């Protein structure tokens, strides 16, 4: 197998006396979907928040494309190519669908105030290329969203909000995509569509690595190549879904007893 594009080693995050993430290590390879599962409060979202720079890790190293990225500001991490979605989707509600995706291109944008005022022709060409790219991306997830790209993002259905969040994250062609519980609050048909979308990301952006936090085990079973199980901030199992789900320690963590 090739080199991992992304890895965390002994990642630890302490809030006061609480150790939310305790010496967590895993590796992500290109084209791989890695699922992080675990009961509520296991520290899954904290891992995402540390990796994306929202919190600085107490200990450990986060390596991305061969360099350590701990302690970098969130926008710098995003610009290097790690993008995420949120558990409670965080769209720019009062902006249009299209504008949300255009903001997502911020990571690749060369924005320059002087050019904004003086060279509007250059900017217009750049912008129209960006718009075309954004519409194409929207179209590959939902034809309808592409058509109604003028709609306020705040007026979308929960399913479309998820799609738009994924489009916004993908807009800058990231190397790693972090999905934080994308199936939360979805009905079975929406969940099925979401699974297709996750797999579609991999065909659309060849070589992308995806880390997925998910409670819905059907999603994990059908999408994940590797599963990491967290409990109380520690990794208690790693492996394929079949291996992990038959692990007694995992069953105990989930059900409270091992059956």
């Amino acid at each position, binding site marked *: 197998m090739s080199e991992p594009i992304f890895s965390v080693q002994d990642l630890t995050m302490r809030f006061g006396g609480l150790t939310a993430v305790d010496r967590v290590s895993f590796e992500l390879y290109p084209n791989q979907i890695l699922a992080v599962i675990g009961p509520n409060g296991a520290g899954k979202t904290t891992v995402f928040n540390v990796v*994306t720079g929202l919190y600085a890790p107490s200990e450990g190293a986060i390596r991305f494309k061969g360099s350590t990225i701990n302690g970098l500001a969130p926008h710098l991490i995003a610009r290097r190519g790690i993008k995420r979605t949120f558990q409670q989707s965080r769209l*720019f509600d009062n902006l249009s669908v299209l504008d949300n995706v255009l903001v997502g291109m911020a990571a690749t944008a060369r924005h320059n105030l002087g050019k*904004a005022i003086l060279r509007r022709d250059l900017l217009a060409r750049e912008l129209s290329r960006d718009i075309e790219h954004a519409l194409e991306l929207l179209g590959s997830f939902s034809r309808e969203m592409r058509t109604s790209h003028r709609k306020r993002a705040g007026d979308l259905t929960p399913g479309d909000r998820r799609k738009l969040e994924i489009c916004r994250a993908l807009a800058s062609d990231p190397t790693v995509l972090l999905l934080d519980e994308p199936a939360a609050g979805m009905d079975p048909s929406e969940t099925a569509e979401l699974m297709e979308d996750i797999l579609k990301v991999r065909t659309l952006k060849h070589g992308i690595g995806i880390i997925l936090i998910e409670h819905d085990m059907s999603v994990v079973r059908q999408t994940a190549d590797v599963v990491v199980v967290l409990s109380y901030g520690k990794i208690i199992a790693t492996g394929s879904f079949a291996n992990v789900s038959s692990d007694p320690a995992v069953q105990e963590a989930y059900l409270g007893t091992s059956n």
Partner: protein
Amino acid sequence: MGAVTMHDESPGKTAYLTRKLAALGILLTSSGAVYAIAVLKNQWIVLGLSVLTVAAMIMIDRRPTLKRRIGEPLRQERGLLLVSATVLALAAPLPLRGDPYTLHVLVMVGISMILAIGLNFQVGSTGIPNLGFAAFYGVGAYASSLLAIRFQLSFWLAILLAAAIAAFFGFLVGVPSLKTRTYHLALVSIAFGLMVYILLNNLAFTGGPNGVKDIPAPFLLGQSLFMSIRIFGLTYPMQLNFYYLVAFFLALTLAAAHCLYHSKVGLFWNAVREDEVAAKCSGINVSAVKILAFCVGAFFAGIAGSLYAHYIGYISPENFNMNVSLLILGMVIMGGMDSIQGTCAGAFLLTIAPEKFRALTDLRMVAAGLIIILMLMFRPAGIIPQRIREYRGLLPLGRDTDTDHE
């Protein structure tokens, strides 16, 4: 390529002409109403007209078909409208030769518009609550006057330096403000406003509570703008000079605001306003974008301050106190957050209203407060609310893109 363009321009000549006439008609009606509100003296007629105008706008806004009918020619005839609006704005003060007071009010309207647009970058576009904006206005006014008096700088140089100094103050407030948000940030801005006010009152070189007087007039082509001018053999009051001076700077401000709004910077400001965390994780340098909003807003406040100082010729700390900050904020909120046209409408109404209702003396502030409360109850987005961005002419001509315009 040629064939495609031909196909796009298919509407017949009559439809084309109707659209042009409709656009002009709408412009003339609305500017006529605005002009009447500005010029007429009877306060009840003015009140009636203002209520009617605002009511008409709200009514139009609630009827989608009517709104589209009116909006369509306005959108398509932007060039024509821009030219005619410029002509109207240049001609508007000419009939007011015997009415320097109304000219003075119009000059103040222009200065208020520059101020409100400046604050709108912060409050409207970026979502930074700023309750001390008058401090930047004051910094600009004092910087410009003192530079002109102490160093005999010309007005043109002084206004640029004053704007730069105000922008630097914006930077100074912006940096500590990054650590705070919402109510806390509002408090920081109030504290800053008070600090500047107290310093202006107590420092020796700002003249303390007595302020700065005898601020020199701007000169243009060797002519002092404090002197009356003669156009076609008619003598006009000196307020006319300042009307055109302020109109010039207002035009620059509007152009800059338009460019910024439609640039990536404007989009990033909006993203930061909507959700800071999501903006950060999208790759936006939130700190830089916020500080830029502080600096740009303060820059325009500095321009407005300099214009005010050199127009009135006398400034004191009272011109830049908390009340002024609140008034400017009122203009932005009432007019429409993040909407350039709305902000201008708010600046117009809140500058005109106290002047027209001078007879009510102290009650006019109560009336102004009441108007704001009513507006916020029935139209919280403002008189002319922010609209979804449109990328006209930049969208690919795909069959599946929604092109209900063009």
